């Protein structure tokens, strides 16, 4: 299997994964979620990870997101080997290197947008004053400068997801890791969100989007397809989808048109 990123004109790698495996024990049976995955993602890349459910893409995402440990293999983030770190060190790295965007936003109830965005800075030990300023800046960056004191129930779904993105960006992570980011949005707001991702990509942010939606995947510049715990294909997107008229959209998006839990 050819490693696409090695051809990618010399940018520093953010993520280097070598022969990563993950085996769960479910009752008596062993489940091989990952059977040897190698993947390099360099700075500034916009990568989509796709695959059917059970393909191992969630497991891979948990690995990349430092939420879980591998059974064997090596994972380096910005050159630092992380597969044998303590829980606290992993938490610190999550805080510093990774910004999470979830399908269901995962905002705190009855908490202002600014407070939501301050959360990673709280755990980073940033002073209240500085963290409030940086939170407002991050909200401005996602176009919510005028919604700083709004609570989730006063924001639309798209705005809530933007708050989540501001929260992901506020600590200047190496990587924005999004899990079905448009899954809970209607197609129009989903489109706006993808446009925001495009902007971030242009600004040099490294983006990894896990999705089962072809349209969302084709907004990236590289698609990694998983099946049965191995990488089936890893290729650049030759014709990137741009702002397609809503009528032409696949119905996959509409399927996830729900409100946050």
């Amino acid at each position: 299997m050819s490693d696409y990123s090695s051809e990618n004109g010399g940018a520093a790698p953010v993520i280097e994964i070598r022969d990563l495996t993950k085996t769960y024990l479910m009752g008596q049976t062993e489940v091989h979620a990952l059977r040897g995955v190698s993947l390099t993602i360099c700075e500034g890349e916009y990568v989509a990870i796709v695959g059917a459910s059970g393909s191992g893409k969630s497991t891979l995402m948990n690995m990349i997101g430092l939420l879980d440990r591998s059974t064997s293999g090596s994972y380096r983030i910005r050159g630092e080997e992380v597969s044998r770190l303590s829980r606290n060190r992993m938490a610190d790295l999550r805080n510093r290197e990774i910004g999470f965007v979830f399908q269901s936003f995962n905002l705190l109830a009855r908490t202002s947008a600014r407070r939501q965005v301050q959360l990673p800075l709280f755990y980073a030990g940033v002073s209240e004053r500085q963290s409030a300023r940086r939170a407002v800046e991050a909200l401005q960056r996602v176009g919510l400068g005028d919604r700083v004191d709004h609570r989730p129930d006063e924001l639309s779904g798209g705005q809530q997801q933007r708050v989540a993105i501001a929260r992901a960006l506020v600590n200047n992570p190496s990587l924005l890791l999004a899990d079905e980011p448009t899954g809970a949005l209607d197609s129009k707001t989903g489109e706006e969100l993808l446009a925001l991702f495009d902007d971030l990509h242009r600004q040099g942010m490294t983006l990894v989007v896990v999705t089962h939606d072809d349209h969302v995947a084709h907004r990236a510049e590289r698609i990694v397809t998983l099946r049965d715990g191995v990488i089936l294909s890893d290729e650049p997107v030759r014709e990137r989808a741009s702002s397609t008229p809503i009528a032409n959209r696949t119905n996959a998006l509409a399927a996830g048109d729900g409100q946050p839990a």
Partner: protein
Amino acid sequence: MKVLRYFVVALDSIRANKLRSSLTMLGIIIGVAAVLTTMGIGSGAAASITQQIESQGTNLLSVSPTGGGSTLTMGDAEALSDRSLHPALLTVVPEYTASATLTNGSSESQTQVVGVLPAYAPVRNLEAAAGRFFSEEEAEANQRVVVLGDTVAADLFAVAAEALNQQVRINGEPFQVIGVLKKSGSAGFGGPDSRAYVPIGVAQGRLFNAPRYRGDYTITAMSIQADGTRMEEAERQTELTLRLRHRLGPNDDNDFSIFNQASLLELAGEVTATLTVFLGSIGAISLLVGGIGIMNIMLVSVTERTREIGLRKAVGAHDSDILLQFLIESLVLATIGGLIGMGISFGLAFAVGRIPNFTFAVIIEPQALLLALGVSSASGFIFGIYPAMRATRLDPIEALRFE
């Protein structure tokens, strides 16, 4: 100071979930209010009893006969009045008490009639609301005069004050009312309010025809005012003289008993202390229940906030961060609950204080406040540990339910 910032997080979370928070606090609120109010009632009752005993004078000795047939006589009282032999005894007043029927026209009252000497009034702190106590001369001359307690006067005459200078009949004999006593307030049976006082000679002679012992009128009790700094001495002198006069051998038991107000005070103190501990422990149990309530709701809250915990971990919270957050939250909840409980008990104490003629006040002492606040905070902390540990152990992947 990172720990301080968790208080902000805790307050945010409490404010964001007002209903859940107030339900969590409810147990502690009720517990603290119960502890403080019951202990306040205990202290209030103690203070009231102490005050009643002290109002009768702590330097008072009461002597009464024991066993069948009184051997206590007027002669005993006279002998004890000898200051040169009993320097610790200031005043000795013999009493002869019996029950009699008092009538005023058709009004009737069954009353303890007490035959005493005029010195009885200052010894027992009796004060007249109208008129006066009888004089030495009246006592000497066995005049038929009577001083009525407040309740007795009110029973016989519609208005207590109208009794003055009227005539009442005691067992049919006419007596002139020369005084009505101030309401003493000591409730219940045996207080001066429900008694009538006549010269002792009248009681022993004409009224009740008291039995004699070795040629002397017997008495039913003696009130002795002693030197307050020499109470033990006073008791010993009284005992010695009475044993000699009653010709008791070294192996004979006393045929009288000496009652000391100070020891009564001590006894009352012990009783009320026990009462306070008893009431307090009932309250403490409700505090414990309140603490368990906190644990219950915190456990529910941990389950309910699984996603929040997962998210906090995803954005970099250490296990210790989550532990501290939940621990401090339950600590803050319990402390706020404790403060509200205090407020309620103060409100109750104030309300009780406003009830007219209530026998005692609810007294909330600073130690009780500290104790209640300390115990409620501690129970918040202790009962917060388990839910906080549950929160800490949550796997962020499970918590977030990726995909």
